[in-house]
C-alpha cells in the first residue's frame, strides 16, 4: 500500500506491506536507523519518536495508520557536528553508556519538556491544577517509559535538568 510520511521535514511516498510498523518503515525502508528497536512490544521506549509533536512508541504503530503525519526522529534533531541542546547535554553529562536507548531517551525528553510546558500533570504531581514544576522526581516519573539497561538514569536526568534550566533562562532573558 502507498502511504505518505513527512519525516524530519521531508515528504516521502512509501510502498509498504500493510504489516510494516512505523519503526520498521524508518529502519528498513528509509535507512533512518537512529530510532532503535529494543522490544517491538511497546515495553522499552527505544523506538520513541514524535508524531505531530507528540511522543509515541513507533513499534506499536502501523505505518499505514500514520499516512500524512509529520514524523520527527533523532536524525531530525541534530547532527554530530551540530547537536541539539539535549543531544549535547547527554554527551556532556554522560547520559548514556552503550547508546542504544539514547535516541529514544532524547526524543522522549524533548516531548516531555513540551508536555510540562503545557501543564500536563503526572502520577507524582501533587495537585492536578497546579503548573507542574519539573523536579527530579517529576523527570524520573515522566521518563520511566524509557528503559536503560546500562542504567544511566541519574545522568539522563542531569542532562535533561541542565537543558530545562538553560531553556528557562533563555526564555527569561527573552522576556
Amino acid at each position: 500500500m502507498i502511504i505518505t510520511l513527512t519525516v524530519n521535514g521531508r515528504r516521502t511516498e512509501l510502498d509498504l506491506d500493510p504489516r510494516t510498523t512505523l519503526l520498521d518503515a524508518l529502519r528498513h525502508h528509509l535507512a533512518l536507523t537512529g530510532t532503535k528497536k529494543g522490544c517491538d512490544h511497546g515495553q522499552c521506549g527505544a523506538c520513541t519518536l514524535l508524531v505531530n509533536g507528540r511522543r509515541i512508541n513507533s513499534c506499536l504503530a502501523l505505518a499505514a495508520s500514520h499516512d500524512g503525519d509529520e514524523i520527527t526522529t533523532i536524525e531530525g534533531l541534530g547532527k554530530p557536528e551540530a547537536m541539539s541542546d539535549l543531544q549535547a547535554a547527554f554527551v556532556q553529562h554522560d547520559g548514556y553508556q552503550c547508546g542504544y536507548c539514547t535516541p529514544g531517551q532524547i526524543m522522549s525528553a524533548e516531548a516531555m519538556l513540551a508536555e510540562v510546558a503545557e501543564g500536563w500533570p503526572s502520577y507524582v504531581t501533587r495537585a492536578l491544577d497546579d503548573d507542574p514544576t519539573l523536579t527530579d522526581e517529576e523527570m524520573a516519573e515522566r521518563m520511566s517509559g524509557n528503559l536503560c539497561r546500562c542504567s544511566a538514569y541519574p545522568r539522563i536526568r542531569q542532562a535533561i535538568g541542565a537543558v530545562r534550566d538553560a531553556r528557562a533562562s533563555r526564555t527569561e532573558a527573552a522576556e
Partner: protein
Amino acid sequence: MDGQPQSKDFSVKFTMDEAQPRVLDRMAQGLLGTAMDRPEGRMKVTGTAPYAAEYRREGLVHGMLVRSTITRGRVTGIDTEKVQSMDGVIAVMTGGPLVRNPAQGTAHEAPAQSLPEVFYVGQPVALVVAESFEQARHAAQALTVTYDRADGADVDPATASDTETPEDDVLSQGDIDTAMKEAAFAVDTRYTTPPHSSAAMEPHASVASWTDGRLELHGSYQMLRHNVAELADALGVDEADVRIHSPYVGGGFGAKLGIAPEAVAAAHAARELGRPVSVVLTRPQVFEMTMRRSETTQRLRLGSDAEGRLTALGHEDWVSNLPGEAFAEPTAQGTHFLYGGDNRYFAQTLARVHRPCAGSVRAPGEAVGMIALECAMDELAEATGIDPIDLRLRNLPETHPENGLPYSERGLGDCLRDGAAKFGWDTRKPAGTRLEGDWWVGMGVASAVRVNALMNSTARVTLNPDGTALCETDMTDIGTGSYAILTQIVGEMLGLDASQIEVRLGDSDLPKSSGSGGSWGAQSCGSAVFLAAQGIRKALAEKLGVAADDLTLKDGTVTSGNVQHGFADLIDSPLTCEGTLNPGDTADAFSIAGYGAHFAEVGVHRDTGEVRVRRMLGVFSIGRVLNEKTASSQCHGGMIWGIGSALTEEIMHDPSDGRIVNHNLAEYHLPVSLDVPDLDVVLLEDTRDDEANPIQAKGIGELGIAGAAGAIGNAIYNACGVRVRDFPATPDKIFPHLPETD
C-alpha cells in the same frame, strides 16, 4: 639496524611478572583520568552510530528463528511446504550448524549443536528466511513443527535427579562444625536468588554475507577473538575465513560474550542461499535463546568469638545449568578472600535442568554470592550487637585466609570508613524504630568485592608525523568507555590532545585483545595500548639519543633537555608499534581484586511493604581511574543493577515445563528511572595497584553490582525489622511480617 628501531612494525611484548613503576604518573599531557566526554558520544546521541542490525547489504534477506515449544525430545517434522508457498518465503532451514544455545564466555569453540534433539522450551529449531522482515516473521509463526516428546525431563533444580558436587570445588579447612558449635555467636542461614536476565537493550542481531568464501558478519559481540573461533567451528570453516565487526554494542553484560544462535543461523543461511542474511532475535527470544544467570540457593555459616572475630565461615551453594554446559555460577568466588576465619567450608552443587542455558551475567559469582554473604554478615552484626561496619573491619584478614597470599592494593577499610562518614552512618537507628509518615526508614551497608583478572591482549598504535595517532585493536566498547579510555592512554603517553587520536575497535581483523567481559577489558587492552605507546616513546628517544624517561611529550611537541621538537622533525613516515600484554607471576603471587562499600537508605511502606530506595552511596577502590566520568557511570550502572536484583528482577520458570513465563520487558522488571534516586559515587583518589598491571588500573564494570543488593536488603531489615532471605524483596515477602503501627 644501528640500534635504532625501524620506522615501522616493531613490537613490544611484556609479561606481568612483578610490580610495575607508575610510568603514567610521570606523563605530562594531563588527559588520563579526566572526565573526558566519550569521543563516540556525538554519534550515539544523533543516531548515527551503527549497531549490528543496521547494516544494509545489496539483496539482503531476513531470517526469523523458530523456537521449540517442548521441553525435551526430538523434532520429527517441519512442515516446510505450507510456508514455502507464503509470500516472499525463500527457505526453511533446520538442523545442520544451528546451535542449541550461545557459547559460554571465552569458550573458543562452537556451542552444542543438538538438533533434532531439543533440550528446553525456546531452543531454536528452525530458521525461516524471506524477502522481508514481515514475511519472515509471519512464516515463522505459521511453521508447524512436530515433536517426539520425552516426558519427565527435570526442570526444577530442587528436585533434579542429575546433580554434581565437584570435589575440586569443595574446600574444607579446619573443622567448621566444631567451630560453629564453639562459637560465641553463630549464624546458620539460607538465602535464595532467582534467575536474572542481562536484558541488554539491543537484541542480539547478525547480518552475514560471504564474499569469495570469506564470511563477513556484523554482530553484537563482546569478545571477537573467541567469537571468530566459535563461529568458524560452528560452520566448519577456518578462522581465517571469518571476520566479525562489532564497532557498537548496545549493551552486553555477559549476554554477548559467546557466539549466539542468531549469528550461526545468519551465517549458515547466507552461505546456503548465496545472499546476505539478517537475523535479529525478538525480545522473548533474547530471554530464551541467550544466557540467564542461574538461580542460587546459598547456605552461609558464620561463627565468631565474643568480639565478633570470625572463627568459622561456610558458603555452600546450589545452582543449575543445561546438560553438557561447563559453566556453573561461581557463587562463592568473593567469599574465599574477603573475610577471615580459620575454619572454612565451601561446596557447590550443580543441578542439570531443562531450562534455558545459564551463563555469565554481569559479575557472575559476586553479583548473587555477595547478596547472601553480606546479608549474613548483617545477621551476625545483629547477633553480636556490633556495628556492621565495625564487624567488617574486624574481619579483614592480613593475608588470603586460604592460601596465605598477600593482597595487592585493597582499599576496603577506607571505603567503609569514608563511606560511613559521608553517608551519615552514625545517625542510623536500631532496627524498626524510625517511622516517618507512612514509611519505615533504615540504612544498610555491604562490602563490594570483585576478582580482578588480566588477559592476553595486543594493540597497535601508529604515530603520524603530523601529530595525529591511530590506535587499533579488536577490543569492543559495550558502553563501558573503551573508546574514551584508550584515547586517553594514547594521548597521555604521546602528549596528544584527544582530538588528534582515532581509536578503531570492534573488527576481528585488528590485533587481538582480551575483549570486554569479566571487568578485564580496560586494564588488559589498556595495558597493551600503553605498551605500544611506550614502544613509540622509546623509538623517539632513540632517535634523539636520549633515554625515554628524559622525554616530555605534551601538546604535540617532544621536549628533551631544553630543546623542543615537532614530531615531523623526528619521523618522516608513520611509526607503528604493536604492544602485547601477558598475565604473569603477579597473578599467582597476589590476591588481586577491586573493593568498595555500598550504603543504602530505604523506605518500607508500613501497610504495603513496598520498598523505595531513598539514597545510595558507593565508594570504590579500583586502582588508577582512567576516566572519572565513564568509571563513575559504570558504578551507577552496577548499583542500579543492585536495585533491580534487590527489589524487582526475577525470571520465572513455569514449574511444569521450565519455560520462561515472563520473557519480556513488561513482566521482567528492570529498574526504571523512578526506581532510582540520585546516586552518590566516590572513587578513592590516588589509588594504584602496582601488582595488577602496568597501568595500575582494575576493573569497574562489575564491582558496582557486587554487594549493592545486600546493602538494600540490610537497609530493609534496619527499617522495619523484616529479614528478607528470598530475593527479590517484593512486598508480599515483607508486609505479612511488618510491625503493628497505629
